[in-house]
């Protein structure tokens, strides 16, 4: 009842100022899941006492599906199972409760976070777990717990331990282009590669160990692969003209990309074992922006062969090409949703570039964003969220929207002027 009143009095557009993401919930989520995360019991000598539960709170509130109760609104602060009284939490309208503790293990420089997720309505334990790691990985520990809470309640994987790769353009502070990675909340940003010449189009290997990208460091575009842990780099065989738009195949042995050596941009694949290019499309127009289908059988691409940029799909084995978009005169940079049933892409309407989705079965287009110059959409590995490049005033920045269009957020914490986000796979 209380919740209903709250919802009906919620104004149409609420803006929540967050520590890391500025979240705007459009239209209001009708029924967010209410969660209470009690500050963890702290059995070790570490100063950041209330850190972990705050990370969990901001993780889970990121996409509007959860409302997380603050400790000052709790009637008790249980740290073990015996201290949990379901009635108290039901009174507060809480659906799920999380408690836990942080302790040291027998191993030096290692801590363990034990936690329990309670289903308050059904009065039972939903999940018991722990996360073990070095004390300096507290943020990661928090993200791991968030992932487990998310997956146990929502039934799909949580994405709080994933990474975002992006390109950071030169600024007054740094004259270089940077290829950066950060946590999905924008924190822990690190430059992987820095160059005075442009960098473009990052793409993760499916094992998350390498990133492919375009670098102009040699005075022309060339595709490089870089191993994250060693910074070891490998340039793909350079061809005349454009060498760009790398996209890793789902099984990791090939890269699809764009070469213009035949006179105009076409889609090619690169065999990483043979160091060989194979041509996939052959047309006098522009073919670009390839993306492998989740089952590896098809490649999505943009082509202006009909006169305006539209999205097509090529079957790699038969080379049969199918046009997918028909609405409007600019549909480009498509990415498959992880289930392969839809695509997300850039759609121009009345001169404005939106992020849109299209159901591949019905062909129905849905416009997700309404800002001016939105581009480079990347889909979370659980299929629930799209992050894209946009403008915050004059500044290039990253923003996100849930695939249902209900929650929109701007990643304020992201370092530099960010563009071309690429969401990492799930594996850690």
């Amino acid at each position: 009842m209380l919740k209903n009143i709250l919802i009906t009095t919620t104004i149409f557009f609420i803006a929540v100022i967050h520590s890391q993401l500025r979240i705007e919930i459009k239209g209001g989520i009708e029924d967010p899941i209410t969660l209470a995360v009690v500050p963890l019991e702290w059995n070790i000598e570490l100063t950041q006492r209330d850190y972990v539960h705050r990370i969990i709170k901001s993780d889970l509130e990121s996409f509007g599906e959860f409302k997380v109760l603050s400790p000052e609104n709790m009637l008790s602060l249980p740290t073990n199972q015996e201290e949990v009284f379901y009635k108290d939490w039901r009174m507060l309208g809480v659906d799920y409760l999380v408690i836990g503790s942080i302790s040291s293990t027998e191993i030096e420089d290692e801590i363990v976070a034990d936690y329990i997720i309670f289903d308050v309505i059904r009065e039972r334990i939903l999940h018991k777990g722990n996360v073990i790691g070095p004390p300096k990985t507290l943020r990661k520990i928090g993200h791991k717990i968030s992932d487990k809470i998310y997956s146990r309640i929502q039934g799909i994987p949580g994405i709080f331990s994933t990474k975002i790769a992006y390109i950071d353009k030169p600024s007054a502070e740094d004259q270089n282009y940077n290829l950066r990675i950060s946590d999905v909340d924008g924190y822990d940003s690190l430059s992987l590669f820095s160059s005075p010449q442009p960098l473009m189009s990052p793409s993760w290997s499916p094992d998350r160990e390498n990133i492919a990208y375009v670098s102009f460091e040699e005075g022309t575009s060339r595709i490089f692969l870089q191993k994250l842990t060693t910074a070891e780099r490998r340039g793909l065989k350079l061809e005349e003209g454009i060498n760009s738009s790398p996209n890793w195949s789902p099984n990791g042995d090939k890269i699809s990309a764009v070469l213009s050596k035949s006179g105009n941009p076409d889609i090619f694949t690169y065999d990483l074992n043979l160091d060989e290019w194979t041509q996939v499309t052959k047309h006098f127009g522009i073919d670009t922006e390839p993306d492998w289908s989740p089952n590896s059988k098809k490649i999505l691409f943009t082509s202006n062969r009909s006169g305006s940029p539209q999205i097509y799909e090529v079957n790699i084995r038969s080379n049969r090409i199918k046009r997918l978009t028909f609405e409007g005169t600019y549909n480009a940079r498509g990415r498959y949703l992880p289930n392969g049933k839809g695509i997300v892409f850039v759609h121009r309407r009345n001169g404005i570039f939106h992020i849109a989705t299209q159901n591949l079965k019905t062909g129905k287009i849905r416009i997700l964003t309404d800002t001016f110059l939105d581009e480079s959409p990347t889909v979370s590995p659980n299929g629930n969220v799209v992050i894209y490049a946009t403008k915050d005033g004059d500044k290039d920045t990253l923003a996100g929207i849930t695939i249902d269009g209900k929650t929109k957020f701007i990643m304020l914490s992201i370092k530099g002027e960010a563009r071309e986000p690429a969401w990492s796979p799930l594996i850690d």
Partner: protein
Amino acid sequence: MNTTHKFLLTLMVFFLASCTSVSSDRTNDATAISATASGAYSDTGVTSNNVLYFAYDKSDINSEGRTKIRTLARLINENNLSVRVEGHCDERGTREYNLALGEMRAKTVTELLIINGVSSEKISTVSYGEEKPVSSGSNERSWSQNRRALVKTF
């Protein structure tokens, strides 16, 4: 104990175990390493007046541009210069598509230079798409300056 009993017991043990099982995850502090482009290409060459401008989403050159290229071609041949043609775009449209559009602009200029007698061996082309704007605003004033091809002579 017969097999059925044994089976039921195993099933029960398994069932209990799955009820009380505790998931365990690990974190590590492995961090990625940074690298820097060493000996990267640096922009040299003379561009002074050698800029051609384009209409939105177009790669054709107007008569004023053609005149400019004719003069340029003469200069290049007289002084036996090498040429690098760079194609650029404004920020509208997707980055990779603009990279392709920038190449079309560079190629149009290259073809006109060749028509005007410059040897194709002396010309190299590159597209930077929308990656190197000269003006940063999101308005027609900036966009019209960014839709360009540069002819750099060496």
